[in-house]
């Protein structure tokens, strides 16, 4: 019986099938586990160890290296405030202080209602759009204290604040754990095929033919080729 729910167990298998060695799937599977529970539980790590042929100690050893994995429950909304230099120059620290005092928690803390966890984070690659914070990794560019207050009001009211981010993003703001609202899906039959490195023999075919030669019967884009 898998720790993952049925749909995610299929996703887990699908993820494993994308890598030549199963251990490579540890980080994607930790994300998947975090998506299911909002944080990475010990039981999830045991399952991931089984799926990837590793030990739970290895899974935790890998997982705890990375900031995004939470090994204890956090809020449904993770507010990450950048205070690195570009944001610092334009008020990132003041924004952090506003957020901390508004929510009544210090960086690293979670509000009593379990809705918000605040973190003082490093550069999130929005430097020209400073100061910046993210909620569940959705960007809010050139943010000021009003922006944050509006975002909180939206979230508490069940509205998506995502477009207030002015970051080209739209739609619902997923709760913590859900990183991508879309996943890669490789259609059966379109997969080139993943082979463990020790089972690969020789150069791939096109290197031998020295060209991207048409394969004859398998032209999948024939319509376009005829244009």
């Amino acid at each position, binding site marked *: 019986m898998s720790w993952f729910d049925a749909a995610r167990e299929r996703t887990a298998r699908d993820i494993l099938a994308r890598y030549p060695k*199963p251990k*490579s799937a540890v980080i994607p599977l930790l994300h998947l586990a975090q998506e299911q529970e909002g944080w990475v539980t010990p039981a999830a790590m045991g399952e991931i160890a089984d799926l990837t042929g590793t030990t739970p100690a290895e899974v935790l050893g890998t997982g705890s290296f990375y*900031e995004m994995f939470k090994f204890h429950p956090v809020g449904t909304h993770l507010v990450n405030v950048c205070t690195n*230099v570009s944001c610092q120059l334009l008020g990132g620290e003041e924004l952090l202080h506003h957020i901390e005092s508004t929510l009544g928690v210090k960086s690293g803390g979670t509000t009593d209602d379990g809705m918000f966890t605040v973190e003082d984070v490093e550069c999130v690659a929005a430097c*020209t759009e400073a100061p910046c914070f993210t909620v569940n990794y959705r960007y809010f560019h050139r943010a000021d204290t009003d922006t944050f207050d509006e975002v909180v009001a939206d979230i508490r009211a069940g509205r998506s604040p995502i477009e207030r981010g002015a970051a080209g993003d739209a739609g619902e703001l997923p709760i913590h754990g859900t990183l991508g609202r*879309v996943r*890669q899906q490789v259609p059966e039959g379109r997969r080139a095929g993943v082979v463990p490195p020790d089972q690969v023999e020789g150069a791939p075919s*096109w290197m031998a033919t020295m060209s991207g030669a048409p394969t004859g019967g398998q032209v999948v884009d024939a319509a376009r080729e005829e244009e």
Partner: protein
Amino acid sequence: MTGLSVPHAAGYVDNGGPKVVTSRFVHEDSYTLERSLATGGYEGLRAALARPPADVHAEVRDATLLGRGGAGFPAGVKWGFCPEDVWPRYLVVNGDESEPGTYKDRLLMERDPHQLIEGCLITCYALGLSQCFLYVRGEMALAQERIATALNEAYEAGYVGRNVLGTDFSVDVTLHWGAGAYIVGEETALIESLEGNRGMPRLKPPYFPAAIGLYGQPTIVNNVETLANVPWILANGAEAYRRMGSEASPGTRLFAVSGHVKRPGVYEVEQGVTTFRDLFYGDEFCQGIRDGHQLKMFIPGGGSAPWFFQEHLDLPLEARDVGAAGSMLGSGALVVMDETTDAVKACHRMVRFFARESCGKCSPCREGTNWEEKILARILDGHGRPSDIDLLLDVGDNISPGPYPVASHPDEGLDAVPFPPRQTTICPLGPSSVACITSTIRRFRHEFEAKITRGEAIPVEAAHPGEETGS
């Protein structure tokens, strides 16, 4: 020409110059396959597939496509380092953009994922790489979604996967989510991470990825922006590419200018022919330091780069010149600081970054960066000691050795700090923390002393005097 902000591509400013990687950004739906195909998408791939792989490699080599991740090494040459006849080989795309000040790869991934995918496919085709891993920084949720969607479209349409465009070229492109660790941007750490391990750098030698990389196999690691250039080169030819920029640094580059400028933004700029001054003060670019203020210092190439000052403004945006002046263009991240900036505080913030992001593998970086951070925090808190400046320099010297002994001859020593840095560490992260300490102490020692002796913030007029507001 005053440049055009493009709101849906947040931060991007169309400065009217030639475009290689941002040509679709004006379209709001630039990330869709439909828009991509309508604007020449995958034409570079078609052009590549019509030629032998070795020709494609040669085309990129002839373009002198310099790596855009930080080191600036020519991609075509790097591609040639795979040992012959060792298979399989892999492509790993470094989309772990986390260098402080850097914002360009996220934009490329969010706004034009098909361009990146196309670049990956051409690279795999040219070098016989059997799988591509697109390692995207974990915090970039939208970028991941856009790439996932683009890959799903491209697989469905036959551009990726088995028998690409009906040829015998087959390759899987796998989107891989990172999980938050700056050091993973270092290519050997990236490979460790992709193998499911802690992202701790491997020692080079022997672990040069092109020879011993992912799963011990030859592996090409390229930055997102680097690969985003490849379709254009194949569609338009190396010669056309070399007509842009300078001879040593052809083509265009994305520069992200943040901080105290009037119009911060991401600009696609011809390399080598534009200067820092142009970029900071030009009307089509950043339009000057914010009103009523003067430039105090700037970071020319991301948090790891030694800091620059007024006298460096007329250097061209070219790796060689910037390197000769003692810093680097790095990841194309420019952080501009005006005279209101507290040098000690800014220095501390940058060192805190390295201390937090040290992977912990080697002792000098693990212990040294944290020690530096503690000393700087103490100085900021008004508990500095007169010996702390020498201590900072000597701790730094034990991470990134300069002429021995630095502390006893601070001026001579600092001037002679070698660049690129020597290191007692495995990777450059630790030495990067030293770069900003030596840069700031060298220029603003009096600010440190003022903090230590009087526990006070800097007087504004003590910042670099005689500054012009630019032209």
